[in-house]
């Protein structure tokens, strides 16, 4: 009985965490498309900011992109997002930009 309650609790916890992960991923996708999109375009093909499509990022690895997201690019309008975006989320964004960002 105790075991099954624990199992149930663990399953419940997992589903909550899973759901939170899902919703925070949706928030990240929305952040990138809407807020990064205000300079880079909703489709990320570029605007005042450069293109973030996979072809345009081919010569930058995910680590470099993560650093750019977190610390910005001095001398350009690209701001540091550290404090608003966690290093883990920045890495996730960088990897997904290289793959082709989710809709």
């Amino acid at each position: 009985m105790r075991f099954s309650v624990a199992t149930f609790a663990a399953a419940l916890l997992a589903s909550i965490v899973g759901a939170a992960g899902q919703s925070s991923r949706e928030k990240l996708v929305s952040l990138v498309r809407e807020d990064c999109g205000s300079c880079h375009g909703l489709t990320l093909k570029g605007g005042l900011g450069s293109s973030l499509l996979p072809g345009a990022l081919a010569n930058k690895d995910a680590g470099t992109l993560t650093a750019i997201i977190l610390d910005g690019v001095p001398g350009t309008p690209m701001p540091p997002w550290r404090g608003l975006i966690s290093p883990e989320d920045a890495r996730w964004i960088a990897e997904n930009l290289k793959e082709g960002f989710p809709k």
Partner: protein
Amino acid sequence: MNRRGFLGAGLAASLLGGAAGRAEERTPPLRGTGSLGLIVERATGSVLVIETMQRISLGRIEGLGDLSHASIVFSPCERYAYVFGRDGGLTKLDLLEMRIEKRIVQGGNSIGGAISDDGRLVAVSNYEPGGIKVFDAGTLTEVASIPAIGANGLASKTVGLVDLPGRRFVYSLYDAGEIWIAEFGESGAPVVTKFLNVGLLPYDGNVTSDARHYLAGLFGEDGFVHLDLWSANPKVERVLQGYNAGRGKIPVYKMPHLEGWGQTANDLILPAAGQHEALVLDLETMREKKRIPVHGQPIFCVARPDGREVWLNFGHPQNDTVQIIDVPTLEVVHSFAPGPAVLHLEFTPRGHEVWISVRDADRVDVMDVRRRTKLAEIPAQKPSGIFLAARAHRLGS
């Protein structure tokens, strides 16, 4: 689809119907367009046609492409709207029939446009390839293409394109740091006047309603560049310089916009880039009059049409809020939070009501300006810019 009354039915017919009987069903009722406008639904590539006296949406026009950062100008008769899309699309809409009159893709990546004072030329500002293209407003056939090659020989993105009296357009070259004025005679090639070394990274520009002062915001240095266009020999002059000096520049998560800016009787109220402040420029002396602390990074500082107040929205992550600056005292007198991601606001022509887009609530609010109360909510899909047809008669819109 939002269907209302005769016009809505007409739109439905135009979208769904075949050729037979279509013209008959689509015939719009006899009416003016002075109370009409458009709301950009940027994610879906559509616009809503709105009616400001009844505070309703009459219908939706779809198929306008990528509308991120889209802007709109109107023909002098206020029947036609020209929508400038990010994908280089230039779409001419018929507000009465609520349909696309003509659509071309004129560039790869665009940022706004303008219509000449005589209503015959439409100019589009392009990022890629950088420069402006000018079209016949009736047919959308190309009249001129002016690549933006700066004195440094590099192609530049163009920003801050607005109309000037006398079939002229003024705009800034983002990468080259120049301001160009293109003048179109009745025939022949346009005459281009160039102002060099205006400053680093002009990100947007606008002109005062008397066509005298053109200002561009400089992202690469804290300040603005000013041209007095009433002068026989306009000179490049820096104003509001160094507003970030001696204090940290706060990261700018969204570029401020100068479109629809805060022009009052004597001053311009402008967004600082990198401070949570609105900057007041005295138009007589061209000197800084005041820095007004505000809620976040200002994006739009829009004057009520009578100039008595200036309403502001803000960049991420303070973008749920609107603040009101009282012009006589130059103080913030009211703050409220319409909802998540307030992207734009547009006053009715005489300023009794204001339409506010709340993107992440998929909603546009209509407010009574003096009572500051909400009068109506219009459902919209990720609404961004709101453009009323009365802009047809404003210089520099």
